[in-house]
């Protein structure tokens, strides 16, 4: 019994330190692999456009990352408002989990108010993520387009967010939070979680395409002015 207590007292801090370092290493590895993935993507080659632009690319890009994401602009968001809101909250929960684990690993204690906000987003994020997973599993049209990676990614991230919430309440949950964070970071560039980067890339391309063609942002319909 004494041996168990001594070894626990010795090994626990060592293991926790290892896990803390591993979180940062995994985060760094993830960033490196995402960079490699971006370079691999760029290796497909960019094409120089020759057609004369009608609108401004940057306006389209600003629209794509801003107003263009709002439900009254985006038909799919308006039609699927619960899913859209759940998606937004889920991603807020994921960002809260990432910040939480980095703070925790760095042994930085955020202000209590921030911890409360994190807890809210972690709880809401987990529920939203679980709801989206359920939707994927239950709806036939979602099952039709899903592959194992879709389920595993969602499960992994849900676990990461939930363990973040639990670790903010019970210290004993911290090792699980660290382990799930490491797994999430390492899996990020491999599976569909890579969209954490490619979302921004794609939205900018989308905005550039439609902005250049003068389609988006939609101009206010002008009244035809007759020249005298």
């Amino acid at each position, binding site marked *: 019994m004494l041996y168990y207590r001594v070894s626990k007292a010795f090994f626990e801090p060592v293991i926790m330190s290892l896990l803390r370092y591993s979180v940062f290493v995994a985060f760094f590895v993830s960033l490196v692999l995402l960079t490699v993935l971006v370079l691999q993507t760029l290796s497909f080659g*960019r094409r120089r*456009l020759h057609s004369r632009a009608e609108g401004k690319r940057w306006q389209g890009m600003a629209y794509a990352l801003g107003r263009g994401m709002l439900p009254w602009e985006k038909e*799919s968001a308006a039609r699927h408002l619960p899913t859209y809101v759940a998606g937004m909250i889920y991603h807020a929960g994921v960002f809260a989990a990432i910040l939480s684990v980095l703070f925790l690993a760095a042994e930085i204690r955020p202000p209590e108010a921030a911890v409360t906000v994190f807890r809210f987003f972690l709880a809401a994020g987990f529920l939203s993520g679980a709801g989206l997973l359920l939707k994927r599993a239950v709806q036939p049209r979602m099952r039709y387009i899903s592959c194992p*990676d879709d389920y595993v990614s969602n499960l992994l991230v849900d676990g990461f967010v939930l363990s973040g919430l639990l670790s903010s309440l019970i210290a004993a949950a911290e090792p699980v939070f660290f382990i799930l964070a490491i797994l999430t970071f390492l899996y990020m560039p491999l599976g569909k979680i890579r969209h954490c980067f490619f979302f921004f890339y794609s939205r900018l391309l989308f905005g550039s395409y439609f902005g250049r063609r003068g389609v*988006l942002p939609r101009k206010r319909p002008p009244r*035809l002015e007759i020249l005298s």
Partner: protein
Amino acid sequence: MKGPAALSDPVQEKIQSLSQEDFEKILQVFREKLDADAAAYLNSCVHCGLCADSCHYYLATGDPEAMPAAKLDLVNQVFKNYFSLLGRKLPKFAGARPLSREMIREWVDSLFGRCTMCGRCSLSCTMGINIFALIRAARSALAAGGLVPPGLQSTVDTAIRTGNNMGISKENWLETVAWLEEELQNEVGDPRARLPVDRKGAKILYTINPREAMFFPLSISAAGKIFYAADEDWTFSSANFDVTNYGLYNGDDEAARIISGRLLQAAEELGCRELVLAECGHGFNSNRWEAPEWLSRKAGIPVRSILQLVAEYIRERRIRLDPSKNPKLFTLHDPCNLVRLGGVVEEQRDILRHSVLHFIEMHPNREKNYCCGGGGGQLAMTSFAKRRIEAGKTKADQIKTANAQVVATPCHNCIDQLMELKKHYKLPIEIKTVCEIAADALVIDRPDGE
């Protein structure tokens, strides 16, 4: 509509007879057509499924195979199989599949047979994935393997061989123009009214959809009448008058380059300072936006839609319109290639507001308008005709809700599809081009005083 349609026999046979070299060639072309933007898009899809009800095929049928995400996934499965680490190591887990005979069958069936490349799904996509461009990349690969459904391929072949997609001979074209010129002279009471052909140094080279010459001569007359009223300096080309370019749809960039290149070459040879495109959605997208990319050079002269020109005539008071000549209730169908993918959004509305007494918008409209189902080469692919009409229900419902008497649309492909929808869904409507409506409203002071 569920399950694969009976692919046309030549395509089935071709798929069965594909050799290893053919597979390699198809894959090689697929790789060549993917640039960094395409690769980024393919890395982005999260299978959220929110694109589903942006597609008229899915809306009309509820068939999961018609979901844009499902169609995109067919392309993505192959991409993952060859170009992603997880896809190469754990294909089943990542949802990756090789380019097999079965996959090619699915590509032909869905990417040709369930998509009009209208781009509506991209607006709804959470990530903003340019789905139609990826589908065109896959169509290009299929074209390299000789796997384009025959009707669409023969349309391209005819255009390459004869200079226009309907194989109209130069003699027939010139006869048609002469006949229409005589009609125009009678209508405006001016023997000097012309439909000029090959006039060197004319400011504008005007192009038409060959269907106008064959089936819709009123569209040519309407443009001629507007040019006459505006006292425009313009001409047709005797050899290169076809605005269409089905290379956009079969994915064959080389064919597309030849077809669009001819129009620019004709304009240059005649010394025209502007290329004006008839009311044709995909013709506009092809010649205004894609041709410079196919040709790897700037167009050299402005390329505009006739709608932009007519709106300019109205603004500059070069023509006068009397809306009371069109007293019925009009609505407008926005062609996807002209509006959502082309950026010509308000000009047709400006023209109609000055040409008709009563105008009502369909909802949704402009860049969010539903595709009629006639794009993507669908009208040329008879093996998918049943699906095309079924998918057109979304547009038919939209028209019924608008409850207008006349549907205006600046696109002859859309007109053909709308005419079929009118018949099938029993829509009590007339269908006209925007210029036909504007021509009906023209106020022309006849020199003969009549």
